[in-house]
């Protein structure tokens, strides 16, 4: 349980190689493909962080935009006076603190309350931020001037994605990860085995929220001019849910399988048919529920298992005959 298996080492080496390869991209292209890659890495980080919590608990969180926006605002408010890395830390702390508050209020209750609470959360935080901004400052938007360029943001997001993966992997090997698997299977058994289910869920939600806050902070220089409506865009939350579920939330790498095609598709739709975006999202949700309830990776796993069992069943049948 504590030592690494050969398979794990192989996967680790492959992941590092892939990461190094991906990091070379800005030397090849700095235009369209880099910008697409930024979006893919951003959503890879967001969806994987989302899945850290929502995967094992099955709680559909729509708080992503709230965490993301807090991260963005942490940078936007103080970028002129404090160093950027510190502000990224601020973003993580602010988002984590919000996650803790939401968790304490809702995670002791059933999933529906949680979804409802997070549904309006981004809008609530946006209203408060806008109100405070109007009350205490005169500007409605904020400029973020840094010497960070698209490729720096790309590298930071890439590093963040790697960090989220590493954290997810470590959690899966920890008591917390084991507790979450038990909770996902049967919460009553979990409680009577001695697991503080509320605490475990809150801890995971805080970790997940903090990562999303970091992603928001990293993206602040990308926007340049920051308004509450873009930072707290509720669409972010929904897109993250769609992509993560499309990929599948049972495995750590599942969401990425959904992220890559969906970001490319989204890019295509927003350029050509921007009016149809809500309809496309609606159809995606319905398609996931009706056609791919376990996500692409879940479906692949099913097919694989069926093939495996057929392969093992065949010789047995031949023997019987």
């Amino acid at each position, binding site marked *: 349980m504590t030592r690494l298996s050969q398979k794990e080492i192989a996967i680790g080496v492959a992941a590092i190689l892939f990461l190094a390869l991906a990091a070379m991209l800005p030397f090849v292209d700095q235009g369209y493909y880099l910008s697409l890659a930024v979006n893919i890495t951003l959503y890879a980080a967001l969806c994987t962080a989302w899945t850290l919590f929502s995967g094992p608990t099955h709680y559909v969180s729509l708080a992503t935009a709230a965490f993301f926006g807090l991260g963005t605002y942490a940078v936007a408010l103080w970028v002129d006076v404090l160093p950027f890395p510190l502000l990224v830390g601020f973003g993580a702390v602010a988002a984590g603190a919000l996650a803790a508050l939401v968790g304490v209020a809702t995670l002791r209750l059933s999933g529906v309350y949680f979804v409802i609470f997070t549904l309006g959360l981004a809008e609530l935080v946006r209203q408060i931020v806008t109100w405070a901004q109007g009350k205490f400052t005169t500007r409605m938007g904020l400029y973020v001037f840094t010497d960070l360029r698209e490729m720096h943001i790309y590298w930071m997001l890439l590093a963040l994605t790697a960090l989220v993966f590493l954290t997810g992997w470590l959690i899966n090997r920890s008591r917390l990860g084991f507790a979450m698997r038990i909770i996902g299977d049967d919460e*009553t058994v979990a409680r009577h085995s*001695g697991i503080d289910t509320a605490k475990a869920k809150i801890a995971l939600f805080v970790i997940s929220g903090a990562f999303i806050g970091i992603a928001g902070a990293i993206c602040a220089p990308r926007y340049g001019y920051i308004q509450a409506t873009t930072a707290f865009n509720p669409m972010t939350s929904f897109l993250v849910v769609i992509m993560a579920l499309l990929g599948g939330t049972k495995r750590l790498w599942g969401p990425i399988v959904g992220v890559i095609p969906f970001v490319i598709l989204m890019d295509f739709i927003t350029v050509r048919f921007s009016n149809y975006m809500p309809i496309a999202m609606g159809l995606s949700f319905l398609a996931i529920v009706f056609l791919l309830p376990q996500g692409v990776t879940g479906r692949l796993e099913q097919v694989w298992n069926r093939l495996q069992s057929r392969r093992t069943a065949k010789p047995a049948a031949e023997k019987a005959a």
Partner: protein
Amino acid sequence: MSAVILGVHAARKAFGGLVAVNDVSFEVRQGELLGLIGPNGSGKTTMLNLISGALKPTTGEIALEGERISGLSAHRIARKGVARTFQLVRVLPSMSAAQNVMAGAVFGRRRLWGEAALHLSHELLERVGLKGRGDMPVGAMTYIDQKRVELARALASDPRVLLLDEWLAGLNPSELKIGIALIEQVNREGRTIIMVEHVMDAIRSLCGRCVVMSSGVKIAEGGVDETLSNPEVIRAYLGDDDA
């Protein structure tokens, strides 16, 4: 006589106007196997739920080794050393048998981790008669084997008190024999057990003492034979006309 390990003092649970457990008191001594019996709907399972913390008593007190546990949440009570099985067997369907048992070893009173927890799981699986089956997905197991896994999971936490909620229900006669022998063996190892049970043969052969409940009230307590021949107990089971 050994020390009192669990004391229930005037425990009461009311759901709105319905009183499911009505000021029930009894004590369980170290190493004892106590039967908790009574007709359907008499409040036995509610009583177990009060002890294990699934429900909080409306009034009254439950103490483990003199320390009050009533009012604590279920997971704290589990960590203090109360483990349970469920009326309808509850295993963790996505996991192997060994991982099921580990749940108790990792989060219960022992709080083991890694190799130690895994080792204990395999040892306990062997003890309940599932030697070498640790890697089997628990969903593929038969009903009695799932019950064994559930028992091993409860034992893995090293409980001071083990609560069995109709653990023998639904077993066929030959399985029942195995089940009874298993409980007896666990008890002989010094484990204190409270069992809610409908199978009277099991109560007769296993329990030293039993508590009888009817309509939420404790109507009798004492040695098994004398209690079961108590006219009030017979009346509770068979109704007034037959008594």
